[in-house]
């Protein structure tokens, strides 16, 4: 099998900070690879180095068997394209945004029209060609960014948290498009994400990165079924390894330690790992009377502003990551150490393995 990406002892320093630390890795052609890790762990730097936008401080990188050097960097850049976490668009129409890279590659007018049309269809934005890109909603803008990358049909596709802080509909459209590209083409995909659901559904291999170091690399199903490795992932997102037992009404109660029991709409007993999407958790300042079977009291220990949404980490014995809109965040007058309740339905609890 051809190796698409090969890194040998790659280190990247920004001043005194090591963004990447002696990373060595091989990614075969046509593989879907996810990179998971907390903010500031080096995911973006890793992708930018693969995109030939940043040069490593030390170490060697080969793309498709060619060693990346000073001279061939801009040429090898054509092999890949990257979608950034923060949506960046040229201040022009959707069509011209997507056509930009194709024009640089010398495509004919007809070929450009055809490709723009087909990628817009893929991200469900048919007929948006003439719209000013910057007037679209946040989710639509990121879909244009993805379409612009997909139009180039590069061998290597680099995606930096493409669905972070997007609405649910746009996120699902993007996930579906990535999945389709992964299955129907020979594209090698490297996806950085926080989202364990994407790891589970979009990737064959996964690497956990922390403070610039690769902690684990392995097949997705192997890593997701290894509770020791999962303990490392758990610090990133709402993953809880535990022991499950079926209770009377057909649901299961899962002991996840620290006196926390999670009720899940599954029937299984024994060792299990579950996760809850941050968007599925409801946050309140007082205890609500609701249908949610799981309610825990805790306090906010971390606040991360993502633009239109805010990501909060809540310590309720176990740590929960919750994503709410900026408006709710402001209206609820939340601060660090605010006392809050997290609540989620038994049906929002999903198994990993």
């Amino acid at each position, binding site marked *: 099998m051809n190796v698409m990406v090969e890194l040998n002892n790659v280190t990247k320093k920004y001043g005194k900070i090591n963004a990447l630390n002696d990373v060595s890795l091989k990614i075969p052609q046509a593989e879907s690879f996810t990179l998971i890790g907390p903010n500031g762990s080096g995911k973006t730097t890793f992708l*930018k180095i693969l995109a*030939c936008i940043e040069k490593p401080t030390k170490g060697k990188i080969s793309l498709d068997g060619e060693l990346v050097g000073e001279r061939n960097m*801009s040429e090898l*850049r*054509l092999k890949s394209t*990257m979608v950034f976490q923060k949506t*960046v668009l040229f*201040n022009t129409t959707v069509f011209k945004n997507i056509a930009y890279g194709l024009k640089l*590659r010398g495509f004919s007018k007809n070929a450009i029209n055809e490709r723009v049309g087909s990628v817009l269809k893929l991200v469900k934005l048919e007929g948006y060609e003439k719209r000013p890109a910057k007037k679209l909603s946040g989710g639509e803008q990121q879909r244009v960014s993805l379409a612009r990358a997909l139009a*180039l049909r590069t061998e290597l596709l680099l995606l930096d948290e493409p669905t972070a802080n997007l609405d649910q509909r746009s996120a699902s459209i993007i996930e579906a498009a990535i999945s389709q590209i992964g299955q129907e083409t020979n594209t090698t995909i490297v996806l950085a994400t926080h989202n364990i659901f994407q790891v589970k559904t979009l990737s064959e291999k996964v690497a956990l990165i922390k403070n610039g170091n690769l902690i684990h690399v392995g097949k997705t199903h192997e890593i997701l079924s290894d509770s020791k490795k999962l303990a490392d992932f758990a610090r990133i997102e709402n993953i809880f390894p535990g022991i499950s037992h079926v209770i009377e009404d057909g649901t299961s109660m899962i002991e996840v330690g620290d006196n926390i029991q999670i009720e899940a709409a599954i029937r299984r007993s024994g060792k299990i790992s579950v996760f809850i999407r941050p968007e599925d958790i409801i946050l309140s300042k007082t205890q609500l009377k609701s249908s949610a079977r799981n309610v825990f009291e805790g306090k906010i220990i971390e606040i991360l502003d993502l633009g239109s949404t805010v990501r909060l980490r809540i310590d309720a014995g176990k740590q929960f990551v919750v994503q709410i809109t900026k408006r709710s965040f402001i209206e609820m007058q939340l601060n660090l150490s605010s006392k809050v309740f997290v609540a989620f339905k038994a049906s929002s609890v999903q198994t990993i393995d």
Partner: protein
Amino acid sequence: MRLRKFKPIPLLISFLVVAAVVIAVVSVEEFYEGIKGAIMLIISVDPEIMEITFRSIYISGTATAFAITWSIPIGLIIGLGEFGGKSFAKGLFNALLGIPTVALGLVLYLLMSSSGPLGFLDLFINPLGIAVGQAILITPIMISFTISAIEAIEPEIKDLAKTLGASEAETAFAVLKESTPGVTLAIMGSFNRAIAELGIAFMIGQNVRGSTRVLTTAIAMETSRGEISLSIALAAILLAIVLSISLLTNLLQRRFR
């Protein structure tokens, strides 16, 4: 530095306020006579006034064109580049923004006059000489505004252009294209500064009738000769040019947004 927007309405209001003060101070009658004469001159399309007007636009337009050829690339290099001395370079051009036109005019006079080191270029008492002088005058404005425009663009645009396959030069061009509204402002503002300046036009051009007389030098001379009607007519034309350019800039800015 934030981009400064030209605001024609406030400018017009301030002109009216100044005019009101002038009317109050100067005898009302003299001013009234002046205005009446000026309107007559403009309506009758006085050939000499037309000639002076077009010469002004031509000279300052040439100056702007000269300045573009070096100021935009310099602005692009400083705005995009990451090098030691970048903030020094920015500070230098910012400091030069307020250079007094008479001081620059004097320096250019010493260089260009027939006995000066550049006398052989025959730029003294020559419209081209004025254009060169004005181009030097507006260079810091154009560079500073261009740098601001480039720096106002999201830095990620650079990475975006690169990852879509652009070379270094194509990346710089993409950034320049994104900053079109700001760069337009830089060009328009520079033209306005050039056409409205007096010091260089007077000292290099020497206000020779039919050759180097422009709007500002003509206004100054006619006023000192007591030809108030003519001065007001010329001033009204100059103001009309500056205001239309500002208005046009504003309209373009709105279209780009």
